[in-house]
């Protein structure tokens, strides 16, 4: 991601690890730098501050469990009035449903990254075939005649 004009950056650190908790990540960040703002969330942490510092700190956090900690940029800083639930009368913030959906897939991705690092060869994936129209017709007819 390119550098921003205002020199700040917000990153979402999503933790899908069996050994690292969001509090561990937050403590790692607190220890490393004071010039940044951190918000602990149910899925990990949000880090905001000067771009180079945030990138450096996030790299340190990812090292805790590199294949099971995921990072993406966030447009709005944590606690921003335009997004924060506190000022909007509750409910999930815009964008959370998507994040939650992807968080559900992270264990699969983490496991795949472990296999990739261990050079486990790729096996052929068998996907279930689509239902044929003729077969569907047979099912409908058998239900009607019952």
């Amino acid at each position, binding site marked *: *991601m*390119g550098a*921003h*004009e*205002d020199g*700040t*950056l*917000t990153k*979402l650190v*999503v933790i899908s690890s069996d050994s690292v908790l969001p509090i561990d990540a937050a403590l790692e960040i607190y220890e490393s730098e004071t010039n940044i703002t951190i918000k602990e969330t149910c899925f990990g942490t949000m880090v905001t501050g000067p771009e180079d510092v945030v990138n450096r700190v996030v790299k340190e956090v990812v090292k805790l469990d590199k294949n099971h900690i*995921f*990072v*993406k*940029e*966030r*447009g*709005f800083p944590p606690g*921003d*009035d*335009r997004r924060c639930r506190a000022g909007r009368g509750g409910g999930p913030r*815009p*964008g959370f*449903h*998507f*994040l939650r*959906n*992807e*968080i559900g*897939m*992270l264990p*699969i*991705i983490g*496991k*795949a*990254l472990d*296999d*990739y690092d261990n050079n*486990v060869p*790729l*096996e052929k*994936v*068998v*996907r279930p075939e689509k239902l044929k129209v003729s077969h569907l017709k047979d099912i409908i007819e058998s239900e009607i005649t019952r």
Partner: protein
Amino acid sequence: MTKVFIYPTNSLILSDLIERFGHTPLAVMGEIHDKITTIGIDSPPLNITPEDPKHGLKYAAVEVPAGVRGRMSLIGPLIDEAEAAIIVDDAAISFGCMGCARTNELTKFLTRDKGIPVLELVYPYSDAEGKEFVYKISEFLDSLPKEDRS
């Protein structure tokens, strides 16, 4: 590093994997950040303003709904900048916050039409599919040039 456009445009998984394998993800979050931190008439600055559907005219005709044009004013410049792209289809989340089937169609069309290397996948729902997903992305990203072009 190659600039890789991602679809869904705010995907955590794609954004992370592209950075992990040494390239630059082009995601809509960066565009939003620039918009909401640039001082303008609105205070605080908004992520979409009445001006945006006009900027979107570069990507969609005037009779196209303003919602599509407004979204394209954010996504369009990313496609212009892209040197490669990863499209993940069949995402249950293509509606919801991303919100607009026509914008999604136009985004995918413009990406494919640009003539850049494009990898098309579907979201994984099992371990085997996940492995295929990650391996294919890594293979695709390894095939892209890694040196800095700027």
